[in-house]
């Protein structure tokens, strides 16, 4: 008796649990709650749809009638002549700065934190510092950009009329802004590399750098790429720091071509700044122009985002499949 009683009990409990699990979705209170929670996601989806519908709808007249023309024209004072050429050019160069500076430095710092750091005070200081930097509002990075970079370029290596408010200053500012995010996401990807892989490398007499270069980085590459693409996308959408760095709203004093290096030392604008410019203009005529500029920025930014997410999903399922 003493033996059988608990067994019967366990059976009953198991049954109850199973019944509970299976009927989980059928309980009215449960269903209500579930749909309420689902509703919040639905709301986000709805907002996104309205936003995209609204913007695409507003921009349609321009995108359908003069898409290429719109890409090729700079800022103008008449809506039917305005385009986004100067903004795209600035955004392109900003992207170059982020990729060339913030990616290698950020990944290097992440390697330091995950592989080389000894756990001493220096490491802890850097760790805390990076997490705090990631939380600094973007507009504050603009202050750094204005005092340091604009101050540096003023009367130096740049067009004298630009007073240091040049593409290079904007690019450096956004490279600095994206640095902490690049570090944090890369460090996460490196942390996910199994320890056994490192041990395998050290076990055959590899130095730390040999292990990192040959085994850790290749394994972490998809994760690092995902993180860096996301931070690039974020940087390209930033407007506030560029306003402080003195991006121009209106006609530029620069006539450099799209890939012309001269642009680095000249006045600049960028896609988000052009959007701000067009959005602040009075009159309904500017709405399609603004919306079209937004569609183009979204194509760029969400394009990078989508690439990052697809990349991650692909490698996740590939690794799981193994």
């Amino acid at each position, binding site marked *: 008796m003493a033996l059988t009683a608990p067994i019967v009990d366990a059976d009953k409990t198991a049954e109850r649990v199973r019944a509970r699990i299976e009927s989980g979705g059928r*309980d009215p209170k449960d269903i209500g709650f579930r749909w309420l929670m689902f509703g919040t996601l639905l709301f986000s989806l709805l907002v996104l749809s309205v936003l995209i519908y609204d913007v695409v709808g507003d921009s349609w007249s321009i995108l359908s009638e003069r898409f290429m023309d719109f890409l090729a024209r700079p800022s103008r004072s008449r809506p039917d002549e305005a385009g986004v050429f100067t903004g795209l050019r600035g955004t392109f160069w900003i992207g170059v700065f982020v990729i060339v500076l913030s990616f290698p430095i950020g990944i290097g710092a992440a390697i330091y934190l995950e592989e080389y750091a000894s756990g001493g005070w220096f490491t802890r200081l850097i760790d805390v510092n990076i997490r705090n930097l990631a939380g600094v509002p973007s507009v504050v990075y603009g202050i750094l950009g204005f005092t340091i970079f604009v101050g540096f370029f003023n009367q130096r290596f740049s067009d004298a009329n630009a007073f240091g408010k040049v593409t290079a200053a904007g690019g450096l500012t956004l490279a600095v802004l994206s640095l902490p995010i690049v570090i944090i996401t890369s460090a996460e990807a490196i942390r996910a590399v199994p320890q056994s892989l490192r041990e395998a490398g050290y076990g055959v007499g590899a130095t730390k750098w040999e292990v990192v270069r040959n085994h850790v980085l290749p394994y972490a590459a998809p994760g690092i790429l995902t993180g860096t693409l996301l931070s690039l996308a974020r940087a390209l959408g930033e407007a506030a720091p560029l306003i402080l760095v003195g991006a121009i709203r209106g006609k530029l004093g620069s006539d450099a071509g799209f890939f012309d290096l001269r642009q680095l030392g000249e006045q600049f604008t960028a896609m988000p700044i052009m959007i701000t410019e067009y959005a602040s203009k009075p009159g309904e005529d500017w709405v399609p122009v603004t919306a079209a500029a937004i569609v183009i920025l979204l194509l760029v930014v969400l394009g990078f985002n989508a690439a990052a997410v697809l990349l991650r999903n692909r490698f996740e399922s590939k690794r799981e499949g193994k």
Partner: protein
Amino acid sequence: MTAPVLDQNLLAGNPKRRNKEKTVGAIFTVAAGLSLVVSLLIVGSLVFKAGSFLGDLINPPEDALAETRDGMISLSNLWSEQWAPRFMQFDIKTLLVASIIVTIVAMAVAGPIGLGAAIYLSEYASPRVRRILKPVLEVLAGIPSVVLGFFALRWIGPNVVANMFESAGNQSLLAAGLGVGLLTIPLVASISEDAMRSVPNALREASAGLGARKFTTSTKIVLPAAVSGLVAAFIVATSRAIGETMVVFLAAGGSGNSAQFTLSPLDRGATMTAAMASQASGTDGTIVETAFNSLFFVGAVLFVITLTLNVIADRFVRRVRQQY
């Protein structure tokens, strides 16, 4: 006692490889150290310029005095009736209150919606459904704030706020707050979801084993267990909302050159961030330096506030890590 020594240098290794190792290590250390330089530069520029602004208030230069009506400038100009740098009126509470209003509105939107989305994703969604729905939040997170600013200006302002409140115009703190709220939903959702997913399954199973509904398990077991992470999510989002610039700059309608003190979300207004952006984008080259430098003072206040919030949030995040 042991075998005879064959070669003392047997294990000395390759000096070239060792040097390379050292060099590479040093490069990475410098890369990490650069982040310290960034912090120093941020703090340095804020302290230097904000300091010179405060110095000007205590010891006003001639050109600044010339802009005032009564020819007087003192620290009390930081607490007057309005924010109007051009006239040496630097009432910081005008900006602070506007920032707080926008943040409260934003969190009223992002808090419940972000949390709800997190609960659904963490507790209800099957892996497949999660994979389909999670990108919705990721796309929303990827939308640049200037785009949401335009949306708040063009759509939320006229279609939502002005429709609901007769006294509100197309631009208002409320419209900006709603826009900022949309912007922070993904942030709240992703940190909250992480917190809830780090609650061990054993707790859920134990709860289900006692015959609890999923609803009960979610609200009575998982949420309390994840509370540190949820608090962290809320604080991080608050910090982000206070620091958000473009939505407010476009949709709140405050002119940086003068903003009146207001407690009403239906009014136009300038937050700290919007005031900084307007100040910096002023095309007016004749503005005196003292007025321009107010931007850095506001920046310093903003920096201190967000840093404090982030440090507090970090504490809570760490508590989550320690628990499980």
